Structures are given as C-alpha cells and as structure tokens.
C-alpha cells in the first residue's frame, strides 16, 4: 500500500503541486467574489450549508448570481434551468476546447472530474500549459479554488458585509488580473491573438454601452462576441497543424521565456 502511494506521488505529485500553486491566487480571488455572492444567496433565503453546496456543485459566478436572484423572485424551475443554461453556455465552448487538448487515452472518469470544475480561470490555466492536459494538475488547482469558492459563499451568507468596501473594491480586480496574465503573454508571441484581444476589448466596450446590446446579460454578450470574433479569426487566420501540435501560443511563449530567463 505504502509503495502504491509512493508510486502515485512519484507520477503525479509534481503536477498536483504545480496545480495547487497556481490555484492559490485563484482560490483567494474566488473567496472574495464568493463572499459577495453569499450576500445574494442570503437574500434568496439560502442557509450557509445550502450556499456551500450550491457553490461546490456550480462554481460559476454569473450563473449562480442569476440563479440566486431568480430564487429570491420565486421563479419556476424551468426558468431557473433556462437562465442557468444561458449564463453558463460559454462553458460548452471551453469544455469542447479542453476535449481537444486531452490525450485520447484519458478515461471517462478523468474527463468527468476535470469537467466538474471548468471555470474561466481553471480552464485558462489548464489550457495555458504546453502539451496535453494533465488531469492531476487540474485536481491540484481545484482544491484551493473550490475551497475558496464554497467557503466564501457560506461565510458571505453568515456574515454579510463585514469586509470594508475599499478592500472589496481592490480585491474585485484580482480575477481580471489573472485573465490578463493568461491572455497577454500569448498575445505578445502571436499577432493574430494580439489582434483578437484588441478587437475583443473594443467590441466588448461597444456591446456594454450600445442600446440594443447593453440590456443583454453579461453572459449572453460574452457568448455572442466569443462566437463572432473567434469565427472571423478562424476564417481569416486558420491555425496551421504545426501550431496546434505544439499546443498553443503559450507553449511557444514558455519556451522563449525560459530561454530569455536563462
């Protein structure tokens, strides 16, 4: 048994540790966001335990916020299902993208477990690693991320607004900082990715103020823009097999970064 455990850690320990390391800032950011989500859950009448379970099973900020708001309004189950589907539809795209980065040999259980906690950030760090996705890296990242998210929600329900507003304001940009750390290095390496990022920023700004689009939920705007911009980029700048085989732009970035550091 002991040697079995040793073998397990010899094979997967490094990936688990790296995942936990990258998951800590995500979990810290989640904790703060979940805390404010907990306030919405309390308004909907959830107990701390119910909030904990809802966040453990969903781990989706926009989706949960929309769901709690509907619960507070005593909406029908069908309404709740449809809104949750729309708010979380971008995960369909992320899960599909992840499926292409798994080794075909990876079994169903690993796929279910990695899929269980697809979030914007955890997807981002998994896809940013070169080569095929290592499920154990994701499991390592899930531990701090899910803890921060679920415990944060429960504490938000229990304690409400105890953090000073200035601290909440400062911590609210943590998640966006992480997004930047994921998209900017590949944009530096690949001009098409850089163009995509600039066009996405501009289009997102237009959509958030244009009268016809501003009333759509943020989740819906994200889906529309993601499908539109990625389709145009794919039509105009199809990616070569060579680039796909090397994983993604990040893989190149890492190699050059390492050379640079050396």
């Amino acid at each position, binding site marked *: 048994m002991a040697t079995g455990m040793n073998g397990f850690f010899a094979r997967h320990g490094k990936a688990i540790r790296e995942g936990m390391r990258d998951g800590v800032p995500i979990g810290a950011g989640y904790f703060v966001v979940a805390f404010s989500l907990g306030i919405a859950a309390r308004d909907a009448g959830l107990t701390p335990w119910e909030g904990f379970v809802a966040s453990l099973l969903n781990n989706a900020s926009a989706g949960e916020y929309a769901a709690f708001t509907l619960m507070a309004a005593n909406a029908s189950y069908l309404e709740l299902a449809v809104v949750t589907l729309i708010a*979380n539809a971008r995960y369909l795209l992320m899960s599909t993208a992840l499926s292409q980065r798994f080794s075909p040999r990876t079994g169903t259980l690993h796929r279910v477990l990695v899929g269980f906690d697809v979030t914007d950030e955890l997807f981002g760090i998994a896809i940013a690693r070169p080569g095929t996705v290592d499920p154990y890296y994701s499991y390592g990242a899930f531990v701090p991320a899910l803890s921060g998210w679920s415990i944060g929600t429960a504490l938000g329900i229990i304690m409400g607004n105890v953090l000073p507003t*200035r601290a909440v304001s400062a911590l609210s940009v943590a998640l966006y900082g992480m997004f930047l750390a994921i998209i900017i290095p590949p944009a530096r390496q690949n001009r098409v990715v850089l163009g995509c990022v600039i066009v996405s920023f501009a289009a997102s700004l237009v959509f958030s103020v244009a009268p016809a689009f501003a009333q759509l939920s943020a989740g819906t705007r994200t889906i529309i823009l993601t499908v539109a911009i990625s389709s145009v980029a794919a039509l105009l700048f199809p990616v070569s097999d060579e680039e796909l085989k090397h994983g993604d732009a990040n893989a190149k970035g890492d190699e050059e970064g390492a050379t640079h550091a050396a």
Partner: protein
Amino acid sequence: MQHSIPLYIAVMSAVTLSVKILPLTLIRRPIRSRFVRSFLYYVPYVTLAVMTFPAIVQATDAPLAGAIALAAGIVAAWFGASLFQVAATCCALVFLIELVML
C-alpha cells in the same frame, strides 16, 4: 406556489454540470475541421478578453483605479510577471489609488 430551495439547487447544478462535463466526455476524437480547430484555438483568448474589459473598470469604486489596474496588468503580463504577481499588482494599485482619491 412556494418552491423548494434544495430542488432549486438540484436544478441549477444539473444544468451547470451537464454544460461543463458533456462536451469533454462525449468528444473523444480530434476534430478534423480546420475551421473548428482554429475557432477553438481562439476561443479562450477572446472569451477572457471580452470578460476583462470594460468589466475591470466597472468593478472598482473609482473607474480610474480600474483603468490604471488594467494598464498596469497588461504591462506586467507583457513583461512576464506570473499569474499571482499580475493579480496582486492590480489589487495593490486599486487599493492605493482609491486610498488617495476617495
């Protein structure tokens, strides 16, 4: 009709988990279409960029603090700062700027 919160939670969780898990478990082969492969290659960058801006400017009490955090985060990430370093830089800047401004 009064709804049950545990049932509400069961419904939202079933929908969320299906969305996250089904593509990953059902799509087992490499997708052949060059368009679809290229599309999926660009998806993460576009999604995260769309979600970052202008949301980062709207998230802070003072929009200027969010804007400066955005600029600083881009510069830090461009020059190779880690995930944690970029996030911490953005948070620290917002805290300091709002301390001075508000």
